[in-house]
Structures are given as structure tokens and as C-alpha cells.
């Protein structure tokens, strides 16, 4: 109950006080430059990495990036910069 209430308050605040959602709601902020770069903030860790696939843990669910010739240019506890040819970005959410 309390968690839901908290989420509701946050949702309400962002809607009414014009605060950025990624800060308020711990959502990932994803910046892409064409197909070649993707920059993800607010991730929760690496789950799988190969040159064709990158799987990231998020606060809620996971993020799956597919493509070719992946290289992690930088990785910090909450940020990651991926380089390569990105074909798809998919959210994998557990069914509620």
C-alpha cells in the first residue's frame, strides 16, 4: 500500500510541478545518437554483454539492446555508454 502511495505522489508531483521524470521516478534516461551510440543513465548494473547484445538491469525490469559490434565505451555505476550498430532497444518488464 505504502509503495503504491509513494508512486502515486511522485507521479502527481512530476505531472503538476514539471519535474523531470527520470529524477523523480528512477527511470532510465536513454540518449541515442543515430544507430551508433547509446547512452543510458540510471541503470542498475550489467546483466549480459556480448558483441551482439547488452542486457541491463533497471529499477523496474530490464533493458535489452541488440545490434552488432558492441563496445562499452564507458561504464560507471549508473551510467553506460555503448558504441556499435544498434538495431533495437527493448524494455522487458515483468508482468505485474
Amino acid at each position, binding site marked *: 500500500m505504502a509503495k503504491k502511495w509513494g508512486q502515486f505522489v511522485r507521479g502527481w508531483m512530476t505531472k503538476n510541478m514539471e519535474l523531470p521524470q527520470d529524477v523523480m521516478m528512477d527511470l532510465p534516461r536513454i540518449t541515442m545518437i543515430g544507430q551508433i551510440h547509446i547512452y543510458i543513465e540510471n541503470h542498475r*548494473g*550489467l*546483466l*549480459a*554483454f*556480448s*558483441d551482439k547484445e547488452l542486457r541491463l538491469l533497471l529499477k523496474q525490469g530490464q533493458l535489452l539492446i541488440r545490434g552488432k559490434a*558492441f*563496445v*562499452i*565505451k*564507458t*561504464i*560507471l*555505476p549508473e551510467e553506460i*555508454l555503448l558504441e556499435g550498430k544498434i538495431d533495437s532497444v527493448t524494455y522487458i518488464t515483468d508482468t505485474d
Partner: protein
Amino acid sequence: MKNQWIEFYRGIVTVKASGKGIERFINTLTRSGINIWNVKNHGTQSVTFKMKLEDAKKIRSHARNSDCRIEFLQRAGAPFLVRRLLKNSGFAAGALAFFAVILLLSNMVWGIEIKGANPATEYQIIKELDKMGVKKGKLQFFVDNVESIQRKLSNNIEAITWVGVELKGTTYHLQVVEKNDPEKPEYLSPRHLVAKKKAVIVDMFVEEGRPVVDIHDHVQPGQLLVSGIIGKEGQTETVPSKGEIFGETWYKSEVILPLKSTFKVFSGNEKVKHGLTIGNLEIPIWGFGSPEFEEYELEENENRVKFLKWELPISYVNKTFREREQVTRIYSNKEAFEAAKDLARKKIKSSLDENAKIMGEKVLHQSVDNGKVTIAIHFQIIENIAEGQPIIQGDSE
């Protein structure tokens, strides 16, 4: 992204991690504050990435806790570069030594060329130069400058009138003019010999011509001594008369000498300073502090450092401070008269020919007033009084 250059200076290592749970390993690394970048996947279960050298030690404990094996592949960056440089320092030392040797050789005396001197004089000059320290293989810094070499050579060697010293690169070029050039046969036109001065003839030596005066004759300036017209009347012939007629001449010389005089002389104390000048910056090498002399004369010698054919803006400076003292000389009256006589003699000698002789002297007058000695001396001198006078054709008839 961070500035790669700063990482470069600290050193970068490439790490290969292989095994299971590489992703977990990377997560733990990033969470414990280790920066990694350029993560690349190499086939199955193996990943390479770069990290800072200073984090390389920390990574081991993390690796032990995970299932990964790590391997250091490549080292890059300044620390490794420096290490390699040290290992190959022989090359650097060689390069440095090469430049040092060239610098040294560029500042050496490599040759001495003497022109215009006959072998005997040349040998003498070489010996004299040797004494001065101008030799092949000497450093130019420790050799006197061109002007003083020139001065010393022309002072110390009698046989040369003038010597021009020039330093071209590493070679000294000496242009010598000798005093006794091979004598040219003197061509004389027909002439008489006449008296230069009023004199009494003491001695005659006539090579050619007809003497018209005799010993003990009193002659006036311009008077005919030796006639250039010889032969009998009607068959005369003109010749260049030649000869020396020594006559006694008289000079009066007056000298005034102060009894008390002050001079500046060098006391012999000196202080030498060596230094390097780079642009306007002076760097002392040896000889510090300022000289404690009250009065001194400064001699400064500057030698540009040369590199091959160029002159560098660096010079070696050699400063010599020579102490000067004031000396007061006080003569007694007697001493003063002696000194004045001496001075008068010297004065007379310098105004006469080399082969003139002082036969006698007579003090005409001497006095002391206002602290000064005045002396007048009459000299009797024997000298050649003959002087050529050309015979103009047609004059003889």
C-alpha cells in the same frame, strides 16, 4: 568522456577477463569506483577492457572473489614509456654525447694558417703562438682573443711589422707583413748630396760621386757635399752620388718634470670570474662575489659558443678584475735632474736616426720652481747629414 590524456600520463593497462559471470565482475568493479572503458567482447566468456594503472592492484582482490580469471595484456602510457626510455637510455645518452662532442669540436682551434711569412718567421710565430696557448686542439674559450694575439705577436716578434689575426670558424688566419722584405735594388737618378743641417763634418764615406767638402768643414743646410758630376771639364758625366757624410750637429732640448707626480698602477691583485651568458641571463660558474678592490679595471672576454657553423646565443665570459693603486712619486732635486736628463736623452734619441750617436751633452741651465724641474741640455750628435738632391738635366752646363 573523461580526458584520455590524463589517464595516459598515469598509465593505462588492458585487461583480459575470462570465465563465468563477467558481467557481475564488471558490475562490482564499477561499483567499487574503478573506472573501466572500451569493454569489448571477444568470443565466448572473454572480455577485454582498459583501466588505470593505479587501479590494477585493486582488481586482483575483486577477481579472486569472482569466477573470472584476469590477464594483463597491454601496458600503455607515460609510466611504461618512461621505463622503456630508461631501459633504452643508452640511445639518449649517445645522442647527448654526440651533441656534446660536436659542440666541443666546434669550439676548438683546428688550424693555424700563416700567410706572408718566410719559413723562419713562420716557425717563430708558431712558437710564439704555442707559448700563448694557441695550438691545434685547444678550446677557443681559453685562448686570448684575436686583438690580444695580434698585439702580443707584433710586440714579441721583431721580424714582423704587422700581423692581422682573423678567426674564421675554427681556423686562425694570420696575415703577416715582414719588416725585412727582400730589398729592391734601388734605382737612383743622378743626384748630388747636400747637407740637411748645419754641421761640422766628422767623417765621410763616399761610394760614388765627387766630394767637394772635407773633414772639419763647417757646412750650412743645402750646401753641396758630394757632387754628382764627375769627369774632366768638357767630358762630364752625371752619376747618382752615394755616400754617408757624418757631421756633428747640435740640438737643444728642454725638459720640464714635476717633482711630485701620481700614477695609477696595477697592484698585481686580480680576481677572475668565469660564467655563461645565455641571452641576457648570466650564470656564474666560478669566482663569486664582487671584488673587494676599491679601484679596479675590468677586462671582459666573451667567447660565443659555436655549433657547427652557427653561433649560439650562449657565450662563455671571462672577467678579470685588476686592482689599481695610486702611487705618488716624489723626487728629490738631484733625482729629478737625473730623471730629466734621462728623459731628454730619450727624447733626442727618438727623434733621430738609428745610427746617430750622442757624442756629448752639456747642461745649459737647470732650475727648480713651483715644484717643477726645468732643464735645458745641449747635445752634440753625430749623424748622417747627407741628403739627395736630383740633378736636373741642363743644369750642369
